[in-house]
């Protein structure tokens, strides 16, 4: 007889990929982040939540290296990270999706995801233009990878459809596909479920979990849907007015008094 339960996710030994130490950031007089520290562990799904204007997107931008903190340090894979040029961000192994969709709307799904492979194409302008030998092999390799992502995200039926003709939920999926194409170690998702209906949300949740499970990608997501956050994340960090007020397992955060106050207001 077969056991009825598939066993729980095997507990990974915790290995830090990024440490953010006492980071602060302000825009003029507005203090977006105040003395925030956060550790990110390998292969975890970390959710960052908080009311509007709490500094969540700022936090993502710090992690991805778009913003450089005024105070504090960011340690990436054991080394202190200095200011990074935009084109080097993706090379670090960090990919992201955006709160509002940022795809090339006139291009097909396939081409959009292929753009995610851009950094991994290395054969030089001449060969690429002539589509000779190496360039050709390389194109085949990249196409293979992209096809695997298309299969993974179950968007085979729209492979050759321009993105602008697709419904919102599918566009979001394509955007995730493009981020995955870069084979990131760390994937940042800025409100991946915003504006979706229940079914689309459920699909997206499954994809996020599958990415984490199959590719072992570390995922940080910002999300407002508490059901989603509590269901899929391993750990939750809560920001309020630029400060981190809680950080822990979903079940602990849910009952944390400070968190409840931040969300419901202090009575």
């Amino acid at each position, binding site marked *: 007889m*077969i056991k009825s339960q*598939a066993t729980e996710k095997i507990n990974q030994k915790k290995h830090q990929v990024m440490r953010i130490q006492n980071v602060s950031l302000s825009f003029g007089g507005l203090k977006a982040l105040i003395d925030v520290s956060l550790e990110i562990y390998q292969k975890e799904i970390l959710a960052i939540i908080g009311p509007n204007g709490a500094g969540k997107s700022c936090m993502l931008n710090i992690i991805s290296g778009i913003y450089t903190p005024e105070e504090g340090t960011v340690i990436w894979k054991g080394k202190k990270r200095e200011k990074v040029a935009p084109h080097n961000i993706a090379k670090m192994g960090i990919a992201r999706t955006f709160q509002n969709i940022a795809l090339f709307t006139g291009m097909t799904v396939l081409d959009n995801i292929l753009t995610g492979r851009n950094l991994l194409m290395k054969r030089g302008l001449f060969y690429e233009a002539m589509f000779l030998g190496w360039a050709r092999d390389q194109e085949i390799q990249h196409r293979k990878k992209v096809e695997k992502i298309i299969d993974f995200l179950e968007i085979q*039926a729209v492979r050759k459809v321009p993105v602008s003709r697709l419904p919102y939920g599918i566009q979001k999926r394509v955007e995730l596909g493009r981020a995955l194409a870069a084979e990131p170690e760390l994937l940042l998702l800025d409100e991946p479920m915003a504006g979706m209906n229940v079914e689309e949300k459920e699909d997206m949740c499954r994809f996020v979990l599958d990415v984490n499970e199959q590719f072992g990608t570390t995922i940080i997501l910002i999300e407002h849907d508490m059901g989603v956050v509590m269901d899929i994340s391993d750990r939750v960090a809560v920001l309020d007015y630029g400060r981190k007020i809680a950080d822990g397992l979903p079940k602990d955060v849910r009952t944390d008094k400070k968190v409840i106050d931040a969300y419901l207001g202090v009575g």
Partner: protein
Amino acid sequence: MFLGGNTLSRNLELLDTFSKILRDNAAVFANKAAIREKEYGIWQTLSWNDFYNNAQILAYGFKKNGVKRGDKVAIVGDNRPKLYLTIAASQLLGAIPVPCYQDSAADEILYILDHAEIKIVVVENQEQVDKVLEVIDRLPKLNLIMYDDSRGLENYDNKSILPLSNILDSKDKVSSSWVDEEINKTSKNDIAIMLYTSGTTGRPKGVLLSYNNLISVAGKACEIEKFSVDDEVVAYLPMAWVGDNIFCVAQSYIAGFCVNCPESRDTLAIDLREIGPTYYFAPPMVWEAMLTQLMVRMQDAARVKLWFFNYFMKVAKNWGNAILDKKEVPIWGRLLYGLGYIFVYGPLKNNLGLTRVRIAYTAGEAMGPDTFLFYRSLGINLKSLYGQTEASVFVTLQNDGDVDPETVGPAFPGVDIKISDGEVLYKSSGVFKGYYKNDKATKDTVDSKGWVSTGDAGVIDSKGHLKIIDRAKDVGKLTSGKIFSPKYIENKLKFHGIIKEAVAFGDNKDFVTCFINIDLQAVGSWAERNNVAYSGYIDLAGQDEVYDLVEKAIYEVNRDLSKDGALSASQIKRFLILHKELDADDGELTRTNKVRRGTISERYGELVDAMYNKSKTCHITTEVVFEDGKKGDISADINIRDLEVHFSKEKAA
């Protein structure tokens, strides 16, 4: 392509089981394509040789996992080469494959796995694994789950859940003498497959079909239609359905043609276009949906194109059928049709992926004559057949050049048909071996002389063609004593593109009423063009304008009925549009989309009562099951509308 030499030369007396045919195919067709699957955007082909080799490896692996002669192997999933391989491997070992409907809910699967005493189940993917795991505690005999697609299953740390690739990629050397020995042990009266019929009433029954049943029928069909190794078929209908086992397994084995598995359900239209099958089967619903979609899209076409379309469709209507039937057609008729082919029919067929179709079938339900003739007028040789799981599909089949849309054609060669008490009975070499563990039902269905009751009421016309009227037990009487045939009325309603499903009531009542399900696509597009705003099915179904639209359709049906002496009393006096689409997940339809009358009149009892107590509206709350198995309620106030009926000739008397 039309020679069919390969089918005629095969000695099916000697090749009397699928394993024997397969062994022969590996020698005769060797590197010709046996099965294709689109994966990662590319069609991947297995030749007959590869297919046979893989079947051997899999059979050996099954044997090592304890599968023995006579054991049953359940299969759950979409049409995938590895699942077809599972069928071949099980049969090679003398085990009996039991394919299940892939959409079945967990407890439906539970019933079959339990009833068939399954020890090993082979499934497509994680979805199906989870479904089986959900009910595993109630299946003490099941000891192995194997799967094809490993996605999402990597972390299932369970020794009894294994990928098929474990066996297929193993380096085990399978000795050919062992394989030959196993194959030679199979014989024509062994059970080839067990198929559970969905059944409009009660629990599904396991139909046992022997090699002889399937091979004799499929062989004859191959001969009639001249199938050869060059034909192509797309496998997209459930593997648990008997048709798939005839069209895509038995006939493919015998004729050697290639079976193509689509990439996913959503890509079917694209895959059809890429493959261009020469042999195509679809239930009426699919043909009708295709036509509806086409008409909806034509509404958005530029005026010139629409004019061309309308003009040449008229030409096709006038001459297309006669040309297809090779009848005499004036030269200008042929010329116009030829022009139409260049401008309209050719591109249209290409768009639908039907350019190369040589033989197309439909069966299962009645199909509107207009829809039927539409496809034939395009030059697609669409034919009706009448069949049953218990008959290994074929009971009747329309002949080329002699197609009447009102009938299902004459008896299939080797089949005897008779009508007894209005019910259709038949006898043939395809008649099943019995229901599994249900002798009583077998005896109720097959009489001592071998006649099988179909449960369908029908008549045989002057040309010897069978016409199916209704399920025999559904035919009832109005209180006036006039005959009432719900299916007949429902079919007439469903021939209107805007009506997707209908359920008629009238047995033991004063008059006839009906429930309507509108076709969301057709009515949605109509609403868009007529500035009717709506938010979803419930909203659209409740709108007065939509009621008007449906009323017009029913008015026409009533006019038709009024001309039909015996049925003029069956004109519909009241109707309502249901607030939800009838769904197999809610038990309202069978898995093959047939209406379950009992369930519906129970679930919607209040509505039926309201129809007969002069109410104008009725409030109803219905429990629905969502795709993920969760339950919820939807409720609505449903309007009931009265209709004027037509005077019939009888009424005057």
